[in-house]
Each structure stands twice: as structure tokens, then as C-alpha cells.
């Protein structure tokens, strides 16, 4: 009641189930503390790393007409990531006339 007088409307959705973008700033600390990380996506605990894995998998890999595209995107990301990691050593191997 006091919050209504101050001009905020009480939230109808319970705080626990909101996504990050729907949480108000004042509620943010209690949201972070209340969030539980264990329930993962679609089935109980098959995916290694939770919901992000499931979302990628269902969008790109688990389609009806499968092809190599879903997995090759992951491998290309792996190559790009490793390139960034080893950039420091690769800097010396550019094609130059004088090294």
C-alpha cells in the first residue's frame, strides 16, 4: 500500500519467475539472490551447461531436416576463439618482406 502511494504499481508476476529485462532496478538485488540455477530447460538435467545449450541445440541442430550447419557453426566458433587466444604468437607470422 505504501508503494502504491509512492507511485509504483505492485507487480502481478511473482519476482522469482521474471526474466532479467522485466525486473525493476529496485528489485534487482533480491532477484539475484532468489534466482535458482538448477532447473535446466526442457528435460531434467541432460544438457551439460543448462538452458543456453538447449536453446542453441533446439534452434540449430535439432531441426527436422538436419545438415552439418548446426555443428559446423560451433566448430567455426571454436576456431575463431582459438585464433583470438593465439593471436599474440601469430602476430609474428604475417607475410612481410622484412620480419
Amino acid at each position, binding site marked *: 500500500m505504501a508503494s502504491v502511494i509512492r507511485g509504483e504499481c505492485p507487480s502481478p508476476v511473482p519476482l522469482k519467475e521474471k526474466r532479467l529485462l522485466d525486473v525493476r532496478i529496485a528489485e534487482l538485488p533480491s532477484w539475484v539472490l532468489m534466482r535458482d540455477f538448477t532447473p535446466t530447460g526442457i*528435460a531434467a538435467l*541432460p*544438457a*551439460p*551447461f543448462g538452458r543456453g*545449450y538447449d536453446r542453441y*541445440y533446439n534452434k540449430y*541442430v*535439432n*531441426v527436422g531436416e*538436419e545438415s552439418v550447419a*548446426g*555443428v559446423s557453426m*560451433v*566448430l567455426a566458433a*571454436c*576456431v575463431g576463439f*582459438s*585464433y583470438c*587466444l*593465439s593471436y599474440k*604468437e*601469430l602476430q*609474428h*607470422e604475417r*607475410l612481410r618482406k622484412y620480419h
Partner: protein
Amino acid sequence: MNENLFTSFSTPTLMGLPIIIMIIAFPALLYPTSNRLISNRIRTLQQYLINLILKQMMAIHSPKGRTWSLMLMSLIIFIASTNLLGLLPHTFTPTTQLSINLGLAIPLWAGAVILGFRYKFKTSVSHFLPQGTPILLIPMLIIIETISLFIQPMALAVRLTANITAGHLLMHLIGAATLALFSISTSTALITFIILLLLTMLEFAVALIQAYVFTLLVSLYLHDNT
């Protein structure tokens, strides 16, 4: 060039944090799981391959040895995937590090040997002395057999490390040679490039073969001891 050659084998760090744990866990992402009996193409393909390897590898074992099926299948899939992923450009291959291969080889070998000594002591000890040896040779032969027993895990680990590391190094060197020869004489560079292609095909085969050999030897040690 000498320093550049071995930097690809150094443990990867991201701003000082070792991310090798992520790199070792990465192949697990490529093998999706599902509750269904029949799933999509990628799962069907993986199931088919795993069944093929499983039947071929565990056929010689007794039921007691077959309790190790999960362990051996995970082993061959891990080694094969890390080796194959290491063939992508710029990636880091965990199996080039002796520490990881020793960590795989020693516990598995020790488990098989301890299992044999615990449950079938006489059979295990009798492996130290082949049948029909002359009496005078017995002490020497027992010493030799003991040494060969203790060398088994070292040989397993070093074999895998050396094969994969040597393959990667050769590809680096021949690639650098091709690039250097390109401006000097293009035909020689072409020959070197063909050598590089053949070497890459060999590396694909080696990646799979080494995984197979590792797992096969562990299963043989297991078979001796169950």
C-alpha cells in the same frame, strides 16, 4: 621460428586464467543426449557409431570385463574427439600434453592390474612367467616381465602424446615450408602442398587410430586380468 613452433602446445590462458578445463570439456557439447528412443540425425549417427565400436571392442570380454564398457567407450570417444578437434586450425589439443595422457593411462592400467591381483592372483602372477622357459632363465625373465608390466602405462601415455604432437609439428613445419617456398619456386611449393594434403589425411587417420589403440590396449590389459 623455433620459439613459434612449440607455442601452439602451451597451455592456453585467457588473461592469465587457465581455460584448459573448458577446452577439455568442450567435446561433450558435440554429443547431445535425449530421452527418446529415436532422435534426430546427429544422434542416430552417433548411436550407430558407438554401437559399432562397442560391439567390436567388448566382444572378447567376460561379463566381468564388460562392466568396463562405459569407461572404455567414454575413453575412445574422448580421445577421438579431442584428436579430431585438434586438426582444426589454431585449436589446442589436450592430448598433446603428457600430463593428460598420463592421467588417462595410469589409473586405467592400475585399475586393471589391481583388479587382476585382487580377484585372480594366481593367473595374474602366472603372466610373469611364460610357459616352457628353461629353468636357468627364470629369474631374469621375471625381472623382465615386471619391468614390461610397469612400462605399460608409460608406453600408453607416451605413444599417444608423441604421435599427436609429432603430427601437429610436421604439419606446422611443412606448412611453413610451403609458404616460404611459394615466392622462390612455385612448383616446389606445389609439391610441398601436396605433401601437406597427404599429411593432413594421415593425421585424420592417426587421430582415430590412436584413440583405438589406446582403448584396445586398456581393454587387453583388462582381459588379461579378469
